[in-house]
């Protein structure tokens, strides 16, 4: 009887509509936040295992945070609004390159280098703008055809950032480096600092995303996803609902792209945001749970941790396994899981988590 809502009477609809209506959930989230913001940085600072070196921090935690953010963005469009997209990588690239342009100044229009936070947000807005343009045809084209259209966007922007030298400030190698990471006058350089910056962004945007999906606009997205004809007869304008989903989704993905470039990569090429990244985000959303913010985190964690497990576990039990086999195995497992989830449990890990909670809520009395 640890996890219960009985006895916690709601005296108003306001109390019932807070973000986590069940007290245990609230406490759980507080604990996770405390661990992420205080406990982990302390462990990192004192190099307490597993943080003896920066490997876990740079190879797992930082990518996990930023890709979770990108997955939240992808989930808004795909999971909440039902518009399948294979172009998430392109929107990360737009966020990254435009944040770079704003961060290094656009001399053609006499724009000086802008502060880093402003640049990152403008990167997001640029992605949102392009997202709206690519969302316009979604009123007419659906399902597979929309997927193909977003795939075209992916290849188009791969080409743009490779060929249009303006975006890379005419760097001969084609690769660019992030501007100085000065956040409000504070220079961010160590892995811990980068982790904290990413964590702050993810926390804020996850909260914003959660607020949107449980409010009026989120219900409109889901209504369009579930039954667009009925939605229209309720007074929801399909184009408006879809375009806001494209805009919000692309904005978040764009911000994640800028963070990925600035914090994780430092120096990057267009290849960093190719079709593989788009597919990876799609897998995260499907495996984690379509239409779930929590699921976006679970999906990102799974996709990042699986390859590591595939290397570590066989090594521990003395099984010889080559990196090539690992990458093959990875594809087989992803493929199998996606087929399984799409058939059996389209709502992914997040749904399994929810079922678990429902069971726990009843426990120990089944009825």
């Amino acid at each position, binding site marked *: 009887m640890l996890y219960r809502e009985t006895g916690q009477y709601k005296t*108003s*609809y*306001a109390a*019932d*509509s807070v973000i986590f209506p069940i007290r245990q959930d609230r406490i759980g989230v507080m604990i996770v936040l405390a661990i992420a913001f205080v406990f982990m940085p302390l462990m990192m600072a004192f190099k307490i295992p597993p943080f003896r070196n920066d490997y876990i921090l740079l190879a797992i935690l930082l990518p996990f945070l930023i890709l979770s953010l990108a997955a939240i963005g992808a989930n808004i469009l795909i999971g909440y609004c039902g518009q399948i997209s294979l172009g998430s990588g392109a929107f990360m690239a737009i966020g990254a390159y435009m944040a770079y342009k704003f961060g290094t100044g656009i001399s053609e229009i006499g724009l000086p280098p802008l502060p880093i936070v402003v640049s990152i947000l403008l990167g997001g807005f640029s992605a949102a703008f392009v997202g709206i343009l690519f969302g316009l045809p979604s009123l007419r084209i659906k399902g597979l055809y929309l997927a193909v259209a977003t795939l075209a966007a992916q290849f188009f922007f791969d080409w743009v950032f490779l060929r249009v030298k303006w975006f890379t400030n005419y760097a001969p190698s084609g690769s660019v480096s992030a501007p100085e990471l000065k956040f409000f006058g504070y220079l961010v350089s160590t892995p811990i600092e980068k982790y904290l910056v990413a964590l702050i962004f993810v926390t804020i945007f996850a909260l*914003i995303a959660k*607020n*949107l999906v*449980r*409010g*009026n*606009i989120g*219900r*409109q997205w*889901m*209504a369009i*996803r*579930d*039954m667009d*004809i*009925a*939605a*229209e*007869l*309720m*007074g*929801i*304008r399909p184009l408006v609902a879809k375009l*806001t989903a494209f805009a*919000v989704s692309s904005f978040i993905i764009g911000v994640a792209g800028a963070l990925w470039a600035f914090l994780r990569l430092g120096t990057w090429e267009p290849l960093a945001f190719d079709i593989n990244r788009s597919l990876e985000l799609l897998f995260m959303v499907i495996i984690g749970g379509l*239409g779930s913010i929590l699921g976006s985190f679970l999906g990102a964690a799974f996709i990042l941790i699986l390859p590591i497990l595939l290397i570590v576990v066989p090594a521990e039990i003395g099984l010889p396994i080559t990196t090539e086999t690992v990458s093959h195995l990875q594809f087989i497992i992803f493929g199998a899981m996606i087929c399984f989830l799409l058939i059996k449990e389209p709502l992914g890990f997040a749904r399994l988590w929810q079922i678990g909670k429902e069971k726990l809520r009843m426990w120990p009395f089944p009825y």
Partner: protein
Amino acid sequence: MSDTPQTLLSVENVTLKFGGVTAISGVSFDIRKGEIRAIIGPNGAGKTSMLNCINGFYHPQEGRITYKGETRERMRPHVAASQGIARTFQNVALFRGMTTLDNIMTGRTLKMKANIFWQMLRIGPALKDEIQHREYCEEIIDFLEIEHIRKVPVGRLPYGLQKRVELARALAMQPDLLLLDEPMAGMNLEEKQDMCRFILDVNKTYGTTIALIEHDMGVVMDLSDRVVVLEYGRKIADGTPDEVKSDQKVIDAYLGVPH
């Protein structure tokens, strides 16, 4: 009611074709403010098509539809919604992935005014919207006796309850004209009785004008003020339940007498 009943909606000479198929041909009738108007007829008579014309989902090739004194041009369904027309569907058309409460809350969507920036923070006008409209939806939930399934995703509900949630969602729009397409199809006797009671209550308490498609003649006779009968896209009778019941053409249509 006043002595001279006001016309809420009038349909004049409406003809609707799908390629070679004429679904409705030259049908005229009106719906008065505050009444329950039944539309009956055998399968394929064009009843659903008629509702689809009324709420702008189909556009008739000929004829006029006048609503609240205004004759309309081609219009989109969401415009009909904003003018106070709500409906339920012959095949349940709920948002399956959403809870009962969220489904009903979508009915309030046109009345929520907070912009996206307030919604992002869920404070100020956005929070006020949520709470105020939640209160309204809870009234409907009480009224239709579905408190126990508020937080259940509608995809998991039995058919009878889904139909009831769909009615709740339409009521949340506070419509002036409510179109019900076979709200009792596939229900057992008890569920039907409940639904009849709800429809009458809606009509009485909220004063909502209702257009009702129903096959069960008993129900139609009990509920409706006036009945229009369609057959093969044509109107064959129009009048009070008693008049219609004794009309020879209607009897023939229902017994399947060849023409």
